[in-house]
């Protein structure tokens, strides 16, 4: 009960107390230690975060030139090492993440049925990754994809939101997939 009476008295005291030399120094050292710890924390973060080389999953992958892309009717092309299917539709090219959005199995292409089917729980997807049926909660995930001029390295066309990529006229243009940027597929109703 005595406690409850005390705090107000102390509160008013705090406002009166001015900072003394010792408190200033203690705060200064604590702040320096905090600053050092934060900086070293930042160093630790930058040190520990993985860096991906070009051509490795997690980094930017050169798939080939525009002329290599499987055209409209051709089946999608699997790139298992860098984990995407390069699929081409009437709207353009897509890089679909090889992992099913349900529980992480690897789905396959059924040429006769013209769709992707997951062997684990039977989720099915269109050639452009759109959900058809099955337990999967959303359409297939896609990677950002772009085409660059082989000589200058300038970006010709680019898709960062998962929409199909318009392929440029130049058959020599290089197609690059950024496997660090995965765009989640649209959830179905």
């Amino acid at each position, binding site marked *: 009960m005595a406690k409850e009476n005390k*705090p107000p008295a102390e509160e008013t005291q*705090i406002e009166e*107390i001015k900072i*003394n030399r010792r*408190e200033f120094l203690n705060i200064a*050292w604590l702040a320096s*230690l905090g600053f050092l710890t934060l900086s070293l924390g930042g160093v630790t973060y930058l*040190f520990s975060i993985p860096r991906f080389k070009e051509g490795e999953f997690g980094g930017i992958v050169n798939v080939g030139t525009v002329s290599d892309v499987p055209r409209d009717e051709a089946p999608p092309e699997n790139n298992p090492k860098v984990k995407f299917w390069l699929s081409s539709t009437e709207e353009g090219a897509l890089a679909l993440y090889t992992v099913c959005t349900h529980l992480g199995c690897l789905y396959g292409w059924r040429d006769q049925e013209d769709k992707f089917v997951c062997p684990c729980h039977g989720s099915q997807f269109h050639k452009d990754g759109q959900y058809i049926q099955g337990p999967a909660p959303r359409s297939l995930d896609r990677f950002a994809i772009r085409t660059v001029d082989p000589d200058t390295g300038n970006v010709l066309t680019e898709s960062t939101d998962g929409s199909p990529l318009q392929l440029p006229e130049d058959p020599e243009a290089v197609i690059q997939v950024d496997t660090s940027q995965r765009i989640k597929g649209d959830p179905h109703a």
Partner: protein
Amino acid sequence: MIKTLNIQDMRKKIGTAVDNRVRIISAGLGLTELRAVMRGDPPTEKPNPRYKVHTTSFIFHIRPRYYQAGSTILTNTFRLGFFTTLFFIIESITGVLLMIYYTPSPEKAYLSILNLMSNVPFGQFLRDMHRLGAEAMVIFTFLHMLRTFFTGSYKKERSFTWLTGVILLGVTLFLSFSGYLLPWDQLAYWAVTIGTSMAEAAPVGGNEINLLLRGAPDIGANGLLRFYLLHVVALPFAVIGVLSIHYYKVAREHGISLPARFEEGDVPPSEVKEAKKRIDFIPDLFTSEIFWTTLGLLILVLAITVGGYHAGLETIANPQVTPLDTTAPWYFWWLQGMLKLGDKSLMGIVIPTIIVLLLIGVPYIDRNKYRSMWRRPWAVSIGILAVIALVVLSYMGLLSFGIESDAATRIVQDLAPEEGVGALREVPYDQLQPGVYVVNETATKNMCPQLDFGCPEFEAFFTEYTRRINEAEAAGDLTNAETVLVVENWQQDLKKVTFRIGWTVDGENKTYEHSIFIHADRINE
């Protein structure tokens, strides 16, 4: 009016809620109390909440509630034990981080260090930090032991603490040494080869110890893995275990020793009373430890970023070639010095064993009950002699001592060492103009008139070469020296620099020739 009252009420409620949270985290210290701690004010509540922390909080329960005022005098301890522990903690943290990129296999170890130094953000910084922290830990462990010896703090109830300290010194040295091999460069490989060979000299079981350490007759994949496991698992666990005992003895049993003068009646009783006054851990010692921690970290970071300390890396380990200047780590120079004095088993095993036994036995050999330096002349003189012996032996362990290498080889090795940079490789590529430069004939000034800005670095290098040759000639090591330096264009972007030194011994002509290839894109300039 009612509104303002409400706001005040809310303020109070929030204040109390925050205060309660803070009390839970800080094991009983409220906001007001924390401020008082920072200010060095007496406790604001009764009973003193600063004592309760020592029973309820894990971190503080291993710390003592108070120290005796006399034991906190800076010159009594120099905080050496504290810093040793701090460096051990820094080593543990940086070590775990370095393990992210390290692979303990001969094929990958060296590459992982190269990757760390050139490709990983702050990789070199963390490696430097780990290396510098290790050096500091060895130095502070040693200084801590010296301090304990000279203040006589190993006596009576502290004798067991001394024993654990000697074990910690050994484990620290071994920790540092086992880390030596991991970069898998020439220095690592050969320093550890020499180190483990010393075990071979043991009359009983030396060969077995060697096999256990190396996992094979010579160091290879097995040896690297074994040293790695020792370095990252076994030895750190040993340190944590023994350090816990060591610290528990200090914190809970006998405390940090008072300076001898307070125990042996050299000062008036009033001062003794003053020295035995209790200083509470919170606030005084706690805030001072924050200060020392910050200072220690700051010095380490500044030594690397501003001071330019860098952990070295030589060329990849080559079991077929021993580089010319192979040395043990500096804290084993004394042992290397002893090995130059005599037989390998006597100097490498028997005498070190005796030294270790003597160190362990110090509290039992020294029966003098006094602690003051003036009252233990024998112990102090022996201590000083031991330190001098250590320094002299370490000096004898240096390369320049006692190893006979002929003057010509020495000069060339110093100017263009097999490992490292040296004066020649520091000369910019453009300044190496093809030609034959004869020592004492070619003028050391204006050596390359065809270059707009001349070649000051090359001239400095050639002057140094001339000086070394003349010095050796004056000392009688090279008689009738005929010395040239030849620079040739060897391939595109590649130059060949040849040292050719001729001299006569007993009327017989001798020559030493050594060539170095220097590429335009090499990294050291």
